[in-house]
């Protein structure tokens, strides 16, 4: 699993993360690392280096280990994601119903491979293994990758991607029309 990192990073506002960590109000241990990274990923849409450094300092886990854990799990990204994340299901059921061709068509239209983001930061293309809606395969899910701004409340609420739009029985021919809906928004 290769992961890209940013060479030059924009400054990020860490206040919300600091506040969140303070709000946890307990002695931080290694068990808090993954939940903290998940919170960061959900709030920023990726893991900014400064945020990981802050987590490392607060949890007293060396930066090397924070990075090691973050790079292991597919949920985490070190580069910002696009405004919309397109998830193409490549689970077995979707696979036998032709999800590869759908993915290829999206790749072609956006000019990016899976795991990548378009230059204008509008779309990120991701592959996922099974979304559990096999009856509708091939499935494409399009959602906003950054939810913290649009939805307040605890961290639990922010990560819930319930607002994601599911597209079922997608064929390569339908792709252009579906993407078109997001091109102007």
């Amino acid at each position, binding site marked *: 699993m290769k992961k890209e990192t940013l060479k030059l990073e924009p400054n990020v506002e860490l206040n919300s993360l600091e506040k969140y960590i303070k709000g946890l109000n307990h002695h931080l241990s290694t068990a808090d690392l993954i939940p903290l990274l998940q919170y960061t990923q959900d709030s920023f849409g990726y893991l900014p280096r400064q945020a990981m450094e802050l987590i490392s300092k607060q949890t007293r886990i060396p930066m090397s280990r924070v990075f090691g854990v973050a790079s292991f799990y597919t949920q985490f990204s070190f580069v910002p994601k696009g405004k919309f994340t397109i998830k193409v299901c490549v689970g077995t059921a979707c696979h036998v119903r032709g999800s590869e061709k759908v993915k290829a068509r999206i790749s072609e239209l956006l000019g990016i491979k899976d795991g990548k983001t378009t230059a204008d930061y509008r779309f990120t293309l991701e592959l996922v293994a099974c*979304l559990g809606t096999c009856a509708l395969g091939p499935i494409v899910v399009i959602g906003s990758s950054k939810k913290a701004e649009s939805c307040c409340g605890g961290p639990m609420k922010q990560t819930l991607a319930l607002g994601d739009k599911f597209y079922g029985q997608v064929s390569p021919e339908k792709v252009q029309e579906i993407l078109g809906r997001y091109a102007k928004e």
Partner: protein
Amino acid sequence: MGRLNSIQDLRTLREKLKKEQENGRPTVVVCGGTGCDTFGGHAIYEALSNVIKDKGLEGKVSLKKTGCQGFCERGPLVNLWPGNIFYQKVREKDASKIIDETVLKGKVIENLLCPDPQTGKPVHIQAEVPFYKKQLRLVLRFNGIVDPTRIDDYIAVGGYSSLEKVFENMSPEQVIKEVADSGLRGRGGAGFPTGKKWEFVRKATGDIKYIICNGDEGDPGAFMDRSVLEGNPHQVLEGMIVGAYAMGCRKGYFYVRAEYPMAVEHVQKAIDQARELGLLGQDILGRGLDLDLEIKKGAGAFVCGEETALIASIEGKRGMPRIRPPYPAISGLWGKPTCINNVETLANIPIIIEKGAKWYSSIGTQGSKGTKVFALAGNVRNTGLVEVPMGTTLREIIFDIGGGIAKGRKFKAAQIGGPSGGCVPEEHLDTPIDYESLQKVGAIMGSGGLIVIDDKTSMVEIARYFMNFVQDESCGKCVPCRIGTRRMLEILNRFLQGEGKESDLDLLLELAANTRETSLCGLGQTAPNPVLSTIRYFRHEYETLLKKPTPEAAKAETVESKEKVKEGIEAG
């Protein structure tokens, strides 16, 4: 609703809730599973709610949303009680008609009924629909009846009564004996006897013991655990409390995939509600049992379904497995005795306690007791969630319940057990589903993914698909898995590019054997299975690819897969 301080309190509450529900009010039930929701289930729910409001029927007609009812292919599903009238493929515009005609006048709307595939006649009652007729729904018994976000609903149908039973009449040892006698085996795939596991944890020494519910359902094409957690989380919770009582655990975790937001939400609600009622926390029902539960969200790693990797992940480390022994039962989370059970395993516990080991063990075969839930998908007509007694044949599941192959194509193979499983060809379709029989034909029970493959799909491509998956998900800790899966993938790619060599088949078999024998954990040990089983039954497909590219038809196919492979290589 206050805290329940005794078993009597719980009984009183149940009686009260039962009375409230037995008021004879007609109830409209909308399936809230992800499948039906995607088809527009939520919009139908809203529309029905509006109609009920507009007509001033609030308080006279109940409306609720339940978990997945399984028949995803025909969604969105709407059930009407009393009568269990079953509507399928319902649209938003049908809402007012359903209320006007069926609920108020008792008239059945024919074109919303499910037609019998044989006779074409509409079937009125859900239980009579062929898809449901051959099923035995125990784990899924309340999916489609209770609202998963309301503990009241679950208690009213008899939920948490197994807790009463164990607190009142059974010692922890008796509970473990009951579970052992039932013959229940782990539903996560390996099939380890649950009673034995519980006994190990009970006997292990430690100042604290943990119980973990493994909901890291990573098998692509499987969604059983998701539907149970979404549709009836309290049944799993109840199983965990009984387990905690039997083993002496004081802390527990729900490990749920982050890709399942609705499951996370429903489990969290279930925990909060149970805590509020005093079914979790300190001194549960005044019986001196302390247990608290917490959700841990998986961060996207297939290997975390392996128990030692899952523990590492909860501890905040990279999710890599370690050598066993010591088994988690002796030294698990934070070095303490830990019991890890699959979602479906835990959901079986309340049923066993309630109905008794004798009753439970009368279902199934000699070595495999009870039922198994399968996620039936792929090129099959009726996609969905099915629960059958052990010993049912694959043919019955695919053809009687699943309705056969979609689009009039021919059956080629059933892939069972996901990336760790194998393909079962037509000649073995009458294999009964149980742990041993499936192993004999080169597949495994697995967690319950069942993908039907039709005759236009290349089996070498299927093998490549799974190898690509495990190669990507291999954690990289041990060499045989990390390198072995990579090399096997390269060879499969060569085959599909038409560049395979005669010696490649033997090399593939040798690599498969080595990876299987020497890998650290189950992921590597079972990774070669899809390759081995496709070579075993579809060797000719590999051999045809070696002879390419001569025949015209084959050429076209190769070009397509070549493109796929190229993409695969570039992406990987």
